[in-house]
């Protein structure tokens, strides 16, 4: 959502802090700006983390609703994205622990499945499924660290702030996750 600065001017996009101020002041609909801004990124993280699209969407919905309820307590409003991610990470940990006993399923990606009908797309789909399968076999804390580092491309300082873990512990988790993925994907590729 944007509002125009004037005829011929580029649209002015409200910052996170401005948007939060509007929501806290009672403009509930302004919250959709934040959902639009961070929804897809949150959905991607949750999907990669949980390995199940429906479960991921549920986690994201719950995360946004929790964030809305606690919005007035968001200390650094310009860093809403990081704050939201800290909620999402906790929510995914809970969901991951709950479903940890279940057999891990592959990501159901309808677009990919349709694309798989074309012969030249099959390898790509299979490879993505191998990646999802390998990710699912990582320990949850390692998967979390790997995704934050190599998918969300956060710095270790940012990761530490969001996860509450120490930098050295995070580096170790990323390293172990990387080694494990290399082994698992090598096995899959060689098979």
């Amino acid at each position, binding site marked *: 959502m944007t509002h125009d600065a004037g005829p011929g001017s580029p649209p002015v996009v409200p910052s996170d802090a401005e948007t939060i101020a509007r929501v806290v002041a*009672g403009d*509930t*609909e302004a*919250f*959709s700006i934040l*959902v*639009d801004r961070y*929804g*897809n990124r*949150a*959905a*991607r993280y949750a*999907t*990669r983390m949980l390995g199940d*699209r429906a479960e*991921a*969407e549920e986690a*994201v*919905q719950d995360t*946004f*609703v929790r964030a*809305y*309820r606690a919005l007035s307590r968001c200390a650094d409003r310009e860093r809403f994205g990081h704050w939201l991610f800290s909620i999402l990470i906790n929510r995914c940990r809970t969901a991951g622990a709950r479903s940890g006993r279940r057999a891990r399923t592959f990501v159901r990606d309808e677009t990919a499945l349709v694309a798989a009908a074309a012969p030249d797309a099959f390898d790509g789909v299979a*490879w*993505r499924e191998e*990646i999802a399968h390998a*990710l699912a076999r990582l320990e949850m804390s390692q998967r979390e660290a790997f*995704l934050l580092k*190599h*998918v969300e*491309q956060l710095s270790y300082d940012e990761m530490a702030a969001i996860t509450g873990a120490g930098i050295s512990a995070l580096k170790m988790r990323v390293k172990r996750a*990387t080694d494990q*993925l*290399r082994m698992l*994907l090598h096995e899959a590729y060689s098979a």
Partner: protein
Amino acid sequence: MPDWVDQLGEELRAPVDLSSLATARIMAAVRADASRRRRRARTWQALAVAAVVVLAIGIAVYARPVDGTAVQFALPVPAAHEVVIVGDFNHWDTHATPLRRTPNGTWQTTVRLKPGAHVYSFVVDGTRWVPDPAAPLAPGSDFGAPNSLVTVAPGTT
């Protein structure tokens, strides 16, 4: 960093769009939550207003300055069962101002009176009108039951 890790990261960075259904659900939950909060806020607001009104009434009733001067009346009739005082200040109502018996047999009460002259009498056991032995008789008492007279000076409390 190995190239394959970058390639893996790139693969995993492929967009995953939050469905429009999920977005709609989020906003529906947010609107419902906002509505609940507004209702709760209105309830608390109403309760706060009610509390202020009750407090204001309480203050008006109990904390306003008491009107008039406290005047003590006493009648030594140890054998009486009931003594009341009647006068222009209580519209000669025989139920309005009963006296209390003290251990020594004197009946007494305190009445707040506005400045000026007030005519009154005691009524003993419901039938016997008795003037106050400690006060002068009111003018005109000669024509019926004798009444007493008390005068409250302006500015006394």
